[in-house]
């Protein structure tokens, strides 16, 4: 094993990787027109995705359990955030702790700070690996610019790398080179909700285009469900967030496309976290990416390099800054009539710094963090192999190896258990996917798959040094945490059903999860000060079934329903994350839509059985149980004129307030929106 070579080493390696990556892409020969999803979808009459294997595929051909939510469904959802869209169209575990605070994962384990679901925007990671979670209100994307949301249920680390453990959510926006999407949305509602968001797409000539989007939102926090100390540190404050993004796509030639995108976002609000408390956060992110696609004699070459930056402030105290630079190179090549290969390389340089924190907050003391620097580099290589065994049988296998070099400095201190040398670590991890898709008939598909996903603990789990004086508690990250793995086996069957003018599906799964990080849900050590030191949990098993059905009725109605059963059996060593009961065992999501002329009505219902977690209270850390509950949402839209739609939208309509999770109590909300499409 190779130890970390220090900061200059990774930088040199990164620069070399980038140079090689782009020179290879620029060596493109004669070719075609890039991946025009719109044209492909119109041709095949169904969504097209690359999120399953990396190669373009029809949704009905993918060897994984996948949901694809379309732009039309997003518009009809009446939702004003992405997790709510996911809750209305999938059986994902969507836990909501506040008006804009969510944890989203699949097949159980839905604790706060879930480190299992990788979230991407156009393939760019927006999952915050510094903390091991996704800050959903920080995603620099407007709902009205999303082409589709692709959800893979089950591990897919073999394609996407670390943290695609429970699944992957890839949010795809419209391509400014192919899609002319321009709109403006104004929305107001109860709890002083206000939103202005919009998208402008401009052609740049020669098949190139530029899209710019932005959004500003603010609203009151939910009012009940806080501890007194949480309110004292500002956890119940109003929520506001803004995002800006720009994406330019250039047609260099018939064979080469280049693109650049940039984003900035900031969210001020409250996020629920382990071990069970609502904390006020101020999170800023920005990103910059260059990408290129070239059709060459050697295949479809894709290259990208991007940088994500993160700056965080917790309870009024600067916490940490992160920068991660990722370079990726792939070549998808159809070797002959039956075999497609996709070799790929990735390099990741991740740095976390606490140089700017001052430790002056009243709630937490971050002075032990002062001057700490750390991070890790990851080099990865892999290959996907797709084999059309017969016209009705396809095999897909993928194998990926990631090697991580951890590094840190400034940790030498007699008051803490881990020193600089403890961070001088490296390890490798192998992830894989294997799937068989059998199109038994024109209307029936059977899918068998097995996969291993690998997760790396969030850097905060490995390097935190924070003191909470009022609790007599220290949070100390552990560099000894091992990566987690999820071995997943599943079988799926789907078929078109003429009687419902739709489709039904069933998937059964069995998972073994090893070395899941307790994260900040680790049971505190005894003594004073007590310490939370993350540790790896014993192996646990999850198994269950997912059912889905969707259809049309009489021309004006359409409907859909998903049911998910997930049982999680924890080992002896557990945590305050309480993974065995963190998710409802049963989840049902159903919807009914109707449209005629300019009128469109949609009704959504979700039912969840009980779940349990922990809350930090003035009396200690206590268990919390949330009973079975149902919620209903609706949207009624009317097209006033071509391109002008007014809608009334409501969520949590059954109750003024309702406990749906272990955070704040959900509140009924009603919105009025006006959308202009130009």
């Amino acid at each position, binding site marked *: 094993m190779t130890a970390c070579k220090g900061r200059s080493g990774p930088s040199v390696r990164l620069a070399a990787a980038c140079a090689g990556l782009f020179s290879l892409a620029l060596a493109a020969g*004669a*070719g*075609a*027109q*890039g*991946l025009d999803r719109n*044209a*492909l979808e*119109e*041709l*095949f*009459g169904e969504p*097209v995705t690359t999120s399953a294997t990396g*190669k*373009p*595929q*029809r949704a*009905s*051909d993918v060897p994984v359990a996948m949901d694809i939510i379309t732009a039309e469904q997003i518009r009809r959802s009446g939702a004003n955030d992405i997790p709510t869209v996911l809750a209305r169209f999938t059986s994902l575990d969507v836990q909501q702790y506040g008006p804009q605070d969510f944890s989203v994962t699949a097949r159980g384990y839905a604790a706060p700070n879930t480190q299992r679901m990788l979230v991407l925007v156009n393939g760019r990671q927006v999952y915050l690996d510094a903390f091991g979670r996704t800050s959903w209100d920080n995603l620099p994307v407007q709902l009205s610019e999303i082409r589709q949301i692709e959800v893979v249920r089950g591990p897919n680390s073999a394609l996407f790398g670390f943290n695609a453990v429970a699944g992957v959510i890839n949010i795809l926006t419209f391509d400014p080179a192919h899609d002319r999407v321009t709109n403006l949305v104004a929305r107001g509602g109860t709890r002083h909700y206000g939103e202005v968001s919009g998208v402008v797409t401009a052609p740049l000539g020669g098949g190139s285009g530029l899209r710019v989007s932005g959004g500003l939102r603010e609203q009151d926090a939910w009012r009940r469900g806080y501890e007194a100390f949480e309110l004292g540190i500002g956890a119940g404050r109003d929520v506001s967030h803004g995002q800006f993004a720009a994406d330019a796509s250039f047609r260099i030639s018939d064979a080469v496309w280049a693109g650049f995108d940039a984003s900035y976002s900031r969210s001020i609000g409250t996020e629920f976290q382990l071990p069970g408390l609502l904390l006020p956060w101020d999170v800023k992110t920005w990103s910059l990416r260059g990408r290129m696609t070239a*059709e060459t004699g050697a*295949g*479809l070459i894709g290259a990208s390099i991007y940088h994500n930056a993160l700056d965080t402030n917790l309870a009024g105290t600067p916490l940490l800054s992160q920068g991660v630079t990722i370079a990726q190179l792939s070549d*998808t*090549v*159809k070797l*002959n*009539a*039956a075999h*497609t290969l996709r070799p790929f390389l990735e390099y990741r340089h991740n740095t976390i710094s606490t140089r700017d924190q001052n430790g002056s907050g009243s709630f937490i003391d971050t002075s032990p963090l002062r001057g700490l620097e750390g991070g890790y580099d990851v080099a990865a290589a892999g290959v996907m192999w797709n084999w*059309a065994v017969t*016209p009705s049988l396809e095999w897909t296998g993928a194998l990926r190896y990631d090697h991580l070099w951890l590094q840190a400095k400034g940790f030498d201190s007699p008051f803490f258990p881990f020193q600089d040398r403890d961070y001088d670590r490296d390890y490798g991890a192998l992830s894989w996917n294997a799937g068989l898709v059998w199109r038994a008939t*024109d*209307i029936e598909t059977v899918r068998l798959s097995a996969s291993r996903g690998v997760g790396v603990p969030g850097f905060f789990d490995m390097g935190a040094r924070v003191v909470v004086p009022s609790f007599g508690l220290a949070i100390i990250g552990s560099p000894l945490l091992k990566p987690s793995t999820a071995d997943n086996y599943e079988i799926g069957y789907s078929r*078109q059903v003429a009687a419902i003018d739709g489709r039904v599906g069933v998937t059964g799964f069995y998972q073994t999860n090893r070395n899941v990080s307790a994260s900040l849900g680790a049971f505190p050590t005894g003594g004073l000060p007590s310490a939370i030191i993350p540790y790896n949990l014993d192996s646990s098993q999850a198994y269950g079934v997912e059912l889905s059905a969707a259809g049309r009725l009489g021309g004006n109605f359409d409907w859909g329903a998903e049911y998910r059963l997930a049982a999680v059996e924890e080992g002896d060593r557990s945590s305050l994350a309480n993974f065995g009961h963190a998710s409802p065992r049963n989840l049902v999501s159903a919807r009914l839509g109707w449209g005629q002329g300019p009128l469109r009505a949609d009704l959504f219902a979700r039912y969840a059985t009980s779940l349990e977690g922990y809350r930090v209270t003035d009396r200690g850390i206590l268990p919390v149980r949330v009973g079975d509950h149902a919620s209903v949402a609706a949207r009624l839209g009317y097209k006033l004129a071509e391109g002008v739609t007014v809608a009334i939208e409501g969520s949590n309509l059954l109750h003024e307030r309702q406990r749906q999770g272990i955070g704040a109590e959900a509140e009924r909300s009603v919105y009025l929106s006006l959308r202009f499409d130009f």
Partner: protein
Amino acid sequence: MLALLAGLALPLGAAADPTPRDLQVLARALGFLERPPAGTAEVGVVYPQQSAAAREEATRIAASFGEGIRAGNLVVRPRLVTVEGVASAPVAALLLTEAAVPHAAAIAGAVAGRSVLTIASDRSLIDSGSVVMVVRGEPRVEILVNRTAAQAAGINFAAAFRMMIQER
């Protein structure tokens, strides 16, 4: 009965009249040629000159194009072409009627290297390499391409398209 393009609502290889969806698939597939036609493109509906019945069916198929099939920025219109006239027909693709199937090899030879896409409904023609493509629109879009025939015809497709179809 004309064979026409793709297997239509039946397994590939069965002969039936094309549905509008079949023709849409045909038109949209033209957009994934390496050098896709732009504006208005013509598809030759091929029939043997000596058969009045075949001409009747070709005429009926041509009528099913209506005013032209729009696929993105492309409008596809039909043109009746006799087997004997394929070599000089200014078309982007040739759609073989059932009556023209026995002449498939000759048609392929006549347009070899001219980047004209030959299409039929009889799957055996794909297996034998007598045509480049078979398409079907329903119940599930299926597109079959014979790589050898495509190469002989001077036809190349976009890489992404190739990865989503069946090749022989």
